[in-house]
């Protein structure tokens, strides 16, 4: 009886936690179909904000900018991060521990400080133009560490004897990399990319500091919309498109994969 009680309390607390996390997002999604543009009062069902969304070139441009930045960042950060994770796991060298700690630095120091430091560095010291180059460089600094740690985490679960076998059988380094190492690393590469792409796409703080004038990414655009109260309902539309649609896609992939694993 007592155990049942503890379990019931635990379940209630768990549900409350999930409601707290998901409630605001779900409500936001529902209200994107509300005809009142400012509103928290429900008027009537409409899809006109979705039509509005696809007819506002400023938002579409911002989305394309964010997609471009996130794509370049993901490719660069995943490549150098995965390589470093591989090297850190495979080779013993002096300064290995120091490098591991250094890679942690950009994600432990508060974003506002790292981003501010990069702004000062770019404008006063190395003169990298604000805008795309600065944003992409800054994003790589923050996201390459993620790839390093994702890769390090996965390396332990990989069977490395395949690599040794390939070398023993006479394959040269390049062939071994192409045929064995990269395929083995693919899950880590994929996991890193899945983590980095949304991070870069959604980042506000770092972009805000180094964007300069004219490189308004989607989060910056959303911020200015909130600041000047321009049709706040469009934010609901954007939230539905960029949170709920991807989630449904991932859930479907998850369910399909789960089912396949189950039947296999």
């Amino acid at each position: 009886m007592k155990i049942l009680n503890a379990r019931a309390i635990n379940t209630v607390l768990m549900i409350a936690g999930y409601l707290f996390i998901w409630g605001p997002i779900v409500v936001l999604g529902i209200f994107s179909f509300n005809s009142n543009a400012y509103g928290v009062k429900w008027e009537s069902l409409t899809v006109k904000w979705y039509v509005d969304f696809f007819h506002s070139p400023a938002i579409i441009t911002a989305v394309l900018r964010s997609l471009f930045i996130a794509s370049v960042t993901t490719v660069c950060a995943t490549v150098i991060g995965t390589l470093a994770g591989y090297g850190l796991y495979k080779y013993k060298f002096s300064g290995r521990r120091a490098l591991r700690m250094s890679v942690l630095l950009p994600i432990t120091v508060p974003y506002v400080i790292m981003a501010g430091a990069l702004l000062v560095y770019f404008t006063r010291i190395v003169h990298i133009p604000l805008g795309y180059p600065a944003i992409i460089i800054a994003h790589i600094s923050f996201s390459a560490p993620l790839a390093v740690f994702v890769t390090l985490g996965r390396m332990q679960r990989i069977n490395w004897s395949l690599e040794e076998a390939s070398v023993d059988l006479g394959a040269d380094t390049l062939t071994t990399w192409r045929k064995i190492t990269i395929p083995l690393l693919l899950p880590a590469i994929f996991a890193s990319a899945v983590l980095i792409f949304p991070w870069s796409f959604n980042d506000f703080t770092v972009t805000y500091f180094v964007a300069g004038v004219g490189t308004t990414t989607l989060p910056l655009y959303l911020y200015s919309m909130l600041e000047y109260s321009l049709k706040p309902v469009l934010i609901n539309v954007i939230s539905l498109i960029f949170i709920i649609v991807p989630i449904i896609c991932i859930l479907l992939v998850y369910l399909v994969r789960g089912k396949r694993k189950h039947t296999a």
Partner: protein
Amino acid sequence: MAASRIKTKIKANLNLFLTVGPVSLWILLFVFAPVAVIVFISFLASTPFGDILPRFSIENYRFLLFGESEYARAVLRSILYAFVTNMACLLIGFPMAYWISKYGGRFKAFFLFLVIVPSWSCYIIRIYALKQLVGYPGIVNDFLLGIGLISSPINILYTPAAVILGLIYIWLPFMVLPIYASLEGINPALLEASLDLGANPRWRFLTITLPLVKGGIFGGTILTFIPALGDWLVPLLIGGNRVWMAGNLIEHFLVVRGKIAMASSMAVILTAAVVLLIYMFIKLGGEESMERIV
């Protein structure tokens, strides 16, 4: 013999250079160098308009720590907010992690996924969602008015309570994950043994489970306390211009007022606080709290 040994050595070094090299160079150029520049600038004097003078000075630090500046108070306030946030995340997050670990069954991954996913989406959207829900006019207020629990609307926006609520909302997922990982790492034999030896479930929870997830709790603390301490976006969006945390002052001095030297000193002070706190948490939580982060 010797030649081939040298050759393998060169090859090993080349491999090392090709794998670890790019990130090392990147970190050196775009993480260490900017931080070094900030630290250097923080010790320079500047004119009242913010132009930097090439002269050593600790005036910034003296002013920030002992002078008329409100920065010291803002840092203390940030630490307080971060502490409250962290405790609330622990209270909300622990039962979630515990439930998933104990009753999740074959849907464990799915439940975890539901915790993580919102943190992948845009901050601004999430804070706006929260704001729309708890603000006035807002759904929570309408509901409470409707059922007659309150007679006049409560407006918590632009108050410290709203900022803390926002911080909890944003950082909660990062408390659940490390605690869950810790709970999963507990050897079930220990729990059975304690039951066999006559412990009741509550006693078992307090004496076996809780000490064993200490590392996870401190890992989660590092992942929620530290980012909450340095947060500036939540106070900006949900606190208006009325509740300032340390990060807001740094942004204000750097971007709005262009006082780079002063902002740099602020950044160094806040970083020092962060490093000190992380060190403390790792000391308290042991090596495991470090492992649970990455």
